[in-house]
């Protein structure tokens, strides 16, 4: 077996500060064991892509990390806090520091773009002035290049624009970690490429770390510092894109062919 796949999963050679860790995570739906002793570690400033087939439990993994799903067993530590032991208020405080980009964007369709962006801001930064809110909204929209859409409704935007607005809404709270759920799915290759480039730019600007769930090879190649292969509910292998592409294991190889 390849050297990289026998290395204990979830440990990075050398590595910086650990800001998120998933240990021995189990989650099943009825008889279907989706996550089966899964491990993952995210270090400050890096982009980790979790690669796996559709239905392999990638989305379940990040939903467990953010506390939308409760795992059957295991430990999840985000920014030093054990997510599974927090009460509602403490969990909300952690969630404010973790951005989550939904596959479906999940923009609030009864609100304008401005209201979408203000929604989390006004509820977390209570003492912030109107002027400051305006400034922050404009900054976030500038980051994604869509200032002119500020008063539009989500239904008036194209798919790529919606993805960018969803990203702006995630960015407005200046998150330390961003979780992306298949950011390029449903977009044409050119728009998808634009979103990937934006993600890389944002990471550089905000010094955030990301977990990116994807099966888009273009995304893996451009955005990843490290790739984790989620196969059979486990961290099957991990390494850089170049390391994985040269592996001989057939289960890994089929992704890169």
């Amino acid at each position, binding site marked *: 077996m390849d050297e990289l796949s026998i290395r204990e999963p979830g440990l990075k050679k050398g590595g910086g500060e650990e800001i998120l860790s998933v240990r021995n995570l189990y989650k099943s739906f009825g008889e279907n064991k989706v996550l089966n002793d899964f491990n993952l570690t995210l270090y400050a400033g890096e982009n980790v892509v979790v690669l796996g087939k559709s239905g392999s439990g990638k989305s379940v993994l990040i939903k467990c990390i*953010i*506390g*939308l799903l409760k795992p059957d067993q295991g430990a999840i530590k985000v920014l030093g806090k054990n997510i599974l032991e927090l009460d*509602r208020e403490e*969990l*909300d*405080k*952690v*969630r*404010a520091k*973790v951005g*989550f980009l*939904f596959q*479906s964007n*999940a*923009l*609030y*369709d009864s609100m304008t773009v401005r209201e979408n962006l203000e*929604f*989390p801001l006004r*509820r*977390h930064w*209570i003492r912030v002035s109107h002027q400051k809110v305006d400034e922050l909204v404009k900054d976030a929209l500038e980051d994604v290049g869509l200032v002119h859409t500020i008063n539009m409704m989500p239904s008036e935007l194209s798919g790529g624009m919606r993805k960018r607005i969803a990203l702006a*809404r995630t960015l407005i*709270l200046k998150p330390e970690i961003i979780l992306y759920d298949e950011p390029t799915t449903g977009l044409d290759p050119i728009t998808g490429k634009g979103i990937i480039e934006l993600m890389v730019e944002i990471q550089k600007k905000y010094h955030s770390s990301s977990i990116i769930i994807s099966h888009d090879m273009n995304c893996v190649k451009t955005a990843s510092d490290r790739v984790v292969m989620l196969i059979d509910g486990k961290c099957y292998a991990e390494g850089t894109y170049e390391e994985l592409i040269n592996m001989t294991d057939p289960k890994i190889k089929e992704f890169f062919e």
Partner: protein
Amino acid sequence: MVLPAKTVQFLRETGDVARFTGRFFSQWLRPRYEISEFVRQCFIIGYKSLPLIGLTGFIMGLVLTMQLRPSLVEYGVESQLPAMVGIAIVREIGPVITALIFAGKIGSSIGAELGSMKVTEQIDAMEVSGTNPFKYLVITRVLAATLMLPVLVMLGDAISLYGSYMGVNIRGITSFRLFWTQVFDNLDFSDVLPAFIKSFFFGFAVGIIGTFKGYHSSKGTEGVGRSANSAVVVSSILIFIIDLIAVQITDLLGFN
């Protein structure tokens, strides 16, 4: 003993509604207060329902009066028509019919709105951004429904009685003043108060069932449809159950 699956499901859902209601009471007084959303919901739930409630109330008052008249004529107590219709509308028909129409209009719209927010992950998006969607979506709507229905009932009663005045005048001549004097002379505080109080409960039932069904909508468009539909069905049944309990209580207290 093994209970039938449907019974288990019913009991489980009843428990879930009770827990949901408990969550409402544990959170409604705690900040943050979503005042602007509450006011917006009052406008949508209250003001925008008024034309429908007014129209149905008017027709109901008119029809009821016209149908009661022959029976009263038979006994020679035609002059008691305003009094009888007044009591019937204020005590029972006004609150119950208004609440049922309210359940149809508001229960379904809350169920569908929250249901589609659930299936398009908008509620999850609020959750993961660390804002409490329960306060923004549930508490505002339940409170608005609870407070707006009694107002609509009062307005509906007044419009209904006006319809009745028109109905009285189709076959005879009664002055506006005489009609209202007859209605109010025969109405007691004990007729108005229980009806007013129970409409708060009707409004609360419509609000809590609508939000519960929407909030727990299952995936897919079918789930949204089912949420809207069952919000109306369950809240309508609850309105009758509350009405039944209310009449027992007012009877015990000697208001009947």
